[in-house]
């Protein structure tokens, strides 16, 4: 916990508002209500808001939890640069989108919810918050501990092969044992 990041709540509220706009729009169009054109607009607006708000931003403090499958949305939203990073812009966009939905009962709830989300985003912007994408961290190789030294570059020094071979006259003094008995070539 720590300083409240209003953007996190604004994000939840905006996502909910998008879904409510979408639902209200579908009811308005499905029932062919009076003013169904506003409902059709509301469907499009709802989808847009959901797409914009689905990728969660990165928290300043603590671990950020991604929504399932949000990576592709993160990439799309990130591509718009300052338009999506800045919360003043988002607050304004949401307020503007909400207005036409207020002209019909079926979508007015979505309008008010989006308006509230816009206000919370305004609060977040005033607090200086920004939208940062959650991207997978690049793998950094863990530094090898000091106790593991550089592997040796050269083989250990050993005498030439003739000296290393077991001599028939001195089997006991050899440096190694054979599993099968040693015999000279002429035996």
């Amino acid at each position, binding site marked *: 916990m720590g300083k409240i990041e209003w953007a996190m*709540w604004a994000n939840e509220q905006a996502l909910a508002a998008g879904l409510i706009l979408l639902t209200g729009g579908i009811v308005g169009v499905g029932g062919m209500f009076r003013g169904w054109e506003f409902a059709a607009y509301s469907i499009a607006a709802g989808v847009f808001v959901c797409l914009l708000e689905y990728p969660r931003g990165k928290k300043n403090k603590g671990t950020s939890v991604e929504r399932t499958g949000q990576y592709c949305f993160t990439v799309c939203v990130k591509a718009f640069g300052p338009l999506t990073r800045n919360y003043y812009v988002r607050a304004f966009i949401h307020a503007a989108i909400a207005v036409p939905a207020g002209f019909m009962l079926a979508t007015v709830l979505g309008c008010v919810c989006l308006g509230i989300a816009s206000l919370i985003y305004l609060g977040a912007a005033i607090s200086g918050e920004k939208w940062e994408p959650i991207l997978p961290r690049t793998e950094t190789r863990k530094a090898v501990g000091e106790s593991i030294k550089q592997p040796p570059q050269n083989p250990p020094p050993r005498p030439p092969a003739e000296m290393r071979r077991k001599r028939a006259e001195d089997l006991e003094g050899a440096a190694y044992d054979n599993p099968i008995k040693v015999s000279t070539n002429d035996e």
Partner: protein
Amino acid sequence: MGNMIINHGLTSFILVVWMSINIFLFVWFYFFYDLGDQFYYTRHLLGSALAWARAPAAVLNFNCLLILLPVCRNLLSLIRGSFMCCGRTMRKQLDKNISFHKLVAYMIGLMTAVHTIAHLLNVEWYNNSRRRMYDPLSTALSDLPDGNNTTYLNPIRNIDVNAQQNPTYFAMTSLAGITGVIITLCLILIITSSMEVIRRSYFEVFWYTHHLFVIFFIGLVIHGAGRIVRSQQNLVQHNYTLCKDRIESWGKVAECPYPQFAGGAPGTWMWVIGPMFLYLCERILRFIRYTQTVKYRKIVIRPSKVLELQLVKAGFKMEVGQYVFLNCPAISHLEWHPFTMTSAPEEDFFSVHIRSVGDWTQKLISMVEELPEGTQGPRMGVDGPFGTASEDVFDYEVSMLVGAGIGVTPFASILKSIWYKFKDSDPKLRTRKIYFYWLCRETHAFEWFADLLQVLEKEMEERGMGDFLTYKLFLTGWDQSHTDHVMVRFDEDTDVVTGLKQKTNYGRPNWEKEFEQVRKENPSSTVGTFLCGPAVLAKVLEKKCAKYSDVDPRKTRFYFNKENF
């Protein structure tokens, strides 16, 4: 399959009962409105959307009744206490109160959506009816005014408004409409601020926004006062089968007087008044507890910013592993935060160990650090104690206690209490054997707990009770310097990290091995497994408990209990 029944049977049963009641209410009220004669004319204007609006309303009544009950923690404590005779399985259900609260909340959200959509359709069709867009019967019904010998059916009376705005106008000027919009908004705000992300990170936002439920309930109770769901009152005099096609003769012929309509009385208050009263009592009780004097016996600042407070309150009685809610008006008037008690009931004070995790705890620690020695701390309100599963730990012959990180706290209380009970040879102690597993990344924050274990270790050896308590420590965050240290001092008697006789294990426990060992050493006992730690570990342990339990009651059976805040 058998294990599932032991561990989840009662919960599933309760859920099935709850869902059945929901389904029953939905279907009953659906058919009441869809088939009832008194709604014939209403249905003519609205079709089945009437029933689709009223059925979820009934389910909403039921669930709004239920939602307040699981959060009355004092009431639940009372029930828990009175059910001591009824077996631990029943009392365990009370641990899951918050899960049930959330489930009921989801149902309320879903039913609100259905109810609202159905009413959107209703308002639209009422509006169209009023503007003579449908058949003559609909027009005639909608035209019925509230006059000297007529009563209206269509609640939209004023059509001097722009046709497209009329539904919104009606919603904003009728009691049902305006309360509906307000309480739905409150519900949406409550739900968005209760999302896990918000709750875990910004508790204040969640807590304060949640208080919108007050507005929600007030609005809910007056939502039906406008009586806009109208039904026919004079079915005997005006038979609709006879009269529906003789609109022109209504009021002129003896067998077809005007159909009279009246709205149904608001019924929601009957459902929710009880729980609202109980919740009010709950909040009053919390307030009374808040005003009771709490004195500081001792304040200790432990390593790693852990604050130990030893408090004394008149008439305060606790059991092992219970928790209290603390409120410090100097920091925040409305916030109550839960803390498990780390003292045993046998002591004449109660203590909590508070770690710096967020705003409130940080402020408390910094306030206490600035106090001069020996003075009383800031004014504190204490609500509780509240019971959790730890109370059951002495009922099991064998107990497995797993504490992860800060979750080791309730077990401090339990282990201390064991020590006291053993010293006094308390016959209430049914426990013969305790296995304690302590998992943490590093022991710095819990040196106070290591000290406690050292003391217990010594006392038990002195009395020759060495194998009553078997404890294993698992250090999950070790590194190279640890292993170097251990390598150098491996042949010493006491552990390098904790100073205890029992050696520290590194890495996470192999639960299969541990459960096997417990089962082998206790072939015919009931084993209670208690965890205070992360949900992931709870899942693992729950599975293992189910796996190693035998359906045969004579063999080893594992019961899983989880603590969670």
